[in-house]
């Protein structure tokens, strides 16, 4: 067994008195796709934000490539090789596409001035490669606000894939997309594994999850309820389990 790329040990997160994560532990091994599943509000998005440094964890250990990491900022996690498609997409509406793609990782010439021709060229290329958008279809000078919801998502996904990170995290990348676009996104996620990279994938659609992922981590109210390798559980069993967890939660409340 290879050593894990990412190890979470007893990770917790609280917002004041609200305990969102209550000691989460699991491993992600190099070259695998781990699906993080769970009810609305289970803490999936919060967990990945702890890994990327958007939230400061209140307890526990995180190890990446064998080294314990503090992750005090997103810049730090990006520099270590973690790219993320957040559920909120993290695009700025009034800025041009070519600014959005490279923000935080600008291509520069001298003294921090932007290399705008190169940013534009690369933006055209990555939209063509990763979303199948032709350069005619989307004008890279347009502001993000004039794109459709699915197009915005495409840009966010293309941005994460472009930087060829070691670990790519995708939080509900297929939600709100047309079926053909969902297919495209799923095949990009498989492509991550084919390139020998690693992914964490969050999706409420168990058909997608079971189809693409190698392993499932089930999160329930801030705790890991169960973990399965793909061969240990069928799609229907996974669905039953999710429904059961949901109903149990509903009864408790």
């Amino acid at each position, binding site marked *: 067994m290879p050593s894990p790329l990412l190890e979470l040990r007893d990770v917790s997160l609280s917002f004041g008195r609200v305990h969102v994560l209550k000691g989460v532990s699991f491993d992600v091994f190099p070259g695998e796709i781990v699906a993080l599943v769970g009810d609305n509000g289970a803490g999936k998005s919060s967990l990945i934000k702890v890994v*990327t440094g*958007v939230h400061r964890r209140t307890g526990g250990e995180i190890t990446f490539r064998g080294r314990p990491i503090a992750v005090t*900022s*997103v*810049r730090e996690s*990006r520099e270590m090789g973690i790219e*993320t498609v*957040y559920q*909120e*997409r*993290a*695009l*700025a*509406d*009034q*800025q041009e596409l070519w*600014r959005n793609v490279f*923000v*935080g*990782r*600008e291509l*520069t010439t001298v*003294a*921090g*001035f*932007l290399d*705008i021709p190169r940013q534009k060229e690369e933006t055209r290329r990555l939209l063509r490669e990763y979303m199948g958008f032709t350069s*005619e*279809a*989307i*004008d890279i*000078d*347009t502001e993000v*606000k*004039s794109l459709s919801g699915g197009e915005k998502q495409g840009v966010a996904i293309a941005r994460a894939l472009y930087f060829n990170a070691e670990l790519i995290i995708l939080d509900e990348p297929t939600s709100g997309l047309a079926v053909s676009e969902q297919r495209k996104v799923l095949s990009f996620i498989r492509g991550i594994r084919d390139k020998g990279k690693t992914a964490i994938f969050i999706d409420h659609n168990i058909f997608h999850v079971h189809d693409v992922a190698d392993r499932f981590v089930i999160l329930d109210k801030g705790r890991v309820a169960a973990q399965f390798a793909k061969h240990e559980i069928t799609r229907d069993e996974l669905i039953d389990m999710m429904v059961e967890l949901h109903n149990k939660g509903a009864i408790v409340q």
Partner: protein
Amino acid sequence: MMASDHPIRRFLSRNRAPVLVTCLWAALYLVYIIGAPQVFLSPGIYAALMGTLAFSGILAIGATYVVTLGEIDLSFPSIMGLSAWVFAHSYATLGSFPLSLVFCLGVGFTLGLLNGLAITKVGVPSIVLTIGTMFLWRGLVHVLVQGQSIVLSQLDGTVWNALLVGRVAGYVPAQFIWFLALAVALGLVYRYHRFGSHVLFTGDDATSARMVGIDTDLVKIKCFVLIGVLAAVAGLLSLAFNQSFFPSHGDSMLLPTLAAVFIGGTSVFGGKGTMWGTFMGVLIMGSLETGIVALGLTGFWYQFIAGLTIVASVILYALLLRKVN
């Protein structure tokens, strides 16, 4: 993709605000020239205008950054006053220009830093905090000077004075050159530098900005430091221009400066603006008083016409935005 393919129409549709304010500026100066040709066809008036609008112009550059963040600074006239007093006092007592310059800029830097820290790290809304610091630093000036003014006649005739407020080629006021140089440099940074991009992102959507790794607190602090330092520069230049320090130094700058930024199309909601627009706004606001008098109206009309200009331009922007969305 809805922009038309013709490059000129593309340019116009992407630069509505700067184009609009440029038209406004051209129309206004045309009115001046037609209404008062004897004044506005002589070069002397332009030298005079350049000499007086530079101070507010330098402040407006900094205000453009702060407004782009979706923040506001109301304390820069007081920072200008206090840093100018520090210069005047230290120059009058120590006689060293370089040392006094360092103190003056240091005060601007420090007061800007304090604003930035209180807004980001403590979490006081900028409009509330800077109302406070506006009174605080102006109050400190009043306490320090006790109603006295400081005359700086010993600055007259020095090379420093020529550098700050002399005439270049016997015509262009040096303070206008300073304004121009700062506007060009900081305009380039605003649009083409990594820092400018981070300011735009932070103002547009601070949550997204943090998710892509921008330290939004640091960006904000830097912008408040920038306007603080620019206020010190404006304070020094206007001090050299007037050759004396009054306790109200800078007080009249607040509203014309912010008006210039808003006329220039920088959005009060953050994330959008241009330095060109601000530059045009400064040329408009800085000419109104002179223009109105030259047109034969009394100075009493100034506020009314300034108000009309501001209201008309911001209504136009609001309509433009509504059309786009």
